[in-house]
């Protein structure tokens, strides 16, 4: 048995509103299942579990604001000896650790809120057994919820201890219908709050500038080879199978990162931990205001077509809702590509606890020396901001140059997915 905690949603998110449970007490869950939907300033996020188990109780009613790291449900798990703090049984410790890092942001406000959540939970646990036999057994939250919605508890089958009615039992009956009828897109709009999002971005970026000694490098990349290759590739494809230049650039970054582990990982509590996987945090501009940086997982193992499909899916979900909690926290480096309407050069601010951010400006026609001659070439400015606690400008320069060289041989980028040298 273990408590399932509200997961970290990234360095710029310290709380979220639980808006929908997708499981109820008694349900069996598997690794990767979505159990709840939460709303943040950046819209709706799907919360996943990372272990097998049976849901025993949902602690938090719908529409509750929950701080990151607070228990939201109890799971009976096979590895039930594991302490609650290790609930997401992942090889990468970053998401947990970033919960800790987030807590440090506002140490004064957090404990009070957490205590109140725990108090509610304790009330429920102590009340259930002392309820008189004449009274319907129901958790206080289930009663409150039922009262709010005008639903009668009579006739509801309880799934809690001694058949007590829990909040999950209510949502599985009368309240399910209106909630399910509401389209996903609406939800994300309801949760999206430009002012809160701006505050969240400001908090994470202020922390980054305060704590991370950034250094900055820039290099100009001749994009002729990549542009020609892309035009030829896309000419033979139907529109839905075409590639964007971003896909080539991201693939070049992912491949280069395998040889530059000091750019791909997390700096936490004074130590740097390189990440075994390459998860590209992609800065996605949200129409209207703000941005998100969901992770494109294991980008080094994808071929270009797969990477493009994932990028398309990630962009759609960032803008319309449906990102998963793991995607909000697993980025190991961030990439910002401004696209054709962007500026020539972008200098990024590192997203903690990551240690590097790459920026790609728009591709412009520029004079370019070829030997003794002058030519006009499509040129793109690539920039790197990296953490001086982990790397220095020499390695940073080599990293940028590797990306540059990789983009000069696009056919190589389209080779089958990268194989581990050892296996």
């Amino acid at each position: 048995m273990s408590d399932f905690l509200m997961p970290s949603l990234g360095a710029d998110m310290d709380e979220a509103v639980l808006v929908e449970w997708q499981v109820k007490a008694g349900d069996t869950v598997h690794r990767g299942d979505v159990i709840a939907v939460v709303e943040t300033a950046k819209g709706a996020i799907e919360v996943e579990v990372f272990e097998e188990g049976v849901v025993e109780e949902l602690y938090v009613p719908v529409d509750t604001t929950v701080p990151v790291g607070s228990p939201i449900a109890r799971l009976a798990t096979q590895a039930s000896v594991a302490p609650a703090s290790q609930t997401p049984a992942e090889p990468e410790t970053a998401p947990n650790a970033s919960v800790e890092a987030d807590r440090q942001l506002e140490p004064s406000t957090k404990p009070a809120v957490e205590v109140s959540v725990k108090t509610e939970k304790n009330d429920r646990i102590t009340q259930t057994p002392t309820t008189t036999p004449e009274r319907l057994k129901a958790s206080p939250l289930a009663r409150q919820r039922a009262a709010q919605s005008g639903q009668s508890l009579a006739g509801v089958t309880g799934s809690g201890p001694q058949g007590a009615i829990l909040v999950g039992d209510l949502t599985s009956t009368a309240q399910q219908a209106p909630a399910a009828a509401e389209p996903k897109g609406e939800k994300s709009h309801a949760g999206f709050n430009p002012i809160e999002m701006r505050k969240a971005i400001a908090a994470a970026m202020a922390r980054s500038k305060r704590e991370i000694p950034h250094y900055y490098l820039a290099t100009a990349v001749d994009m002729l080879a990549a542009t020609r290759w892309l035009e030829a590739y896309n000419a033979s494809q139907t529109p839905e199978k075409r590639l964007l230049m971003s896909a080539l650039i991201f693939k070049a970054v992912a491949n280069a990162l395998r040889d530059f582990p000091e750019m791909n990982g997390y700096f936490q509590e004074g130590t740097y931990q390189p990440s075994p996987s390459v998860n590209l945090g992609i800065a996605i501009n949200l129409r209207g205001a703000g941005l998100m940086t969901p992770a494109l997982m294991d980008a080094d193992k994808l071929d270009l077509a797969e990477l493009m499909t994932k990028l398309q899916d990630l962009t759609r979900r960032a803008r319309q809702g449906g990102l998963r909690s793991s995607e909000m926290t697993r980025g190991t480096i961030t990439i910002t590509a401004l696209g054709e309407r962007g500026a020539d050069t972008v200098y990024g601010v590192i997203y903690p606890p990551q240690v590097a951010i790459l920026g790609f400006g728009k591709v412009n026609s520029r004079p370019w020396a070829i030997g003794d001659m002058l030519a006009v070439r499509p040129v793109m400015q690539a920039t790197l901001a990296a953490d001086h606690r982990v790397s220095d400008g020499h390695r940073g320069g080599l990293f940028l140059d590797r990306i540059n060289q990789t983009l000069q041989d696009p056919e190589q980028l389209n080779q089958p997915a990268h194989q581990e040298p050892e296996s």
Partner: protein
Amino acid sequence: MMNRDELRTALIEEITRIAPDLSAAEITDDASLRDDYDLDSMDSFNLASAIHKRLGVNIPETDFARLQSLAQLVAYLEKHPA
């Protein structure tokens, strides 16, 4: 085959699906989809895919890059029916 109004209606539906913050009423014939409505390269990719799926027209990338406005898209699709 669709007439001009039907093409226009279909395109506006797809554009507002891609950019839900735009309303059908505010999309005018000659405004630049990229500069006035802030459609980015991923949005353009999605629009080309949607036109292919819905209207059966595979607009080559080199042509599509030149089609900047709703009016230009409608005119192209009139000339190049499925």
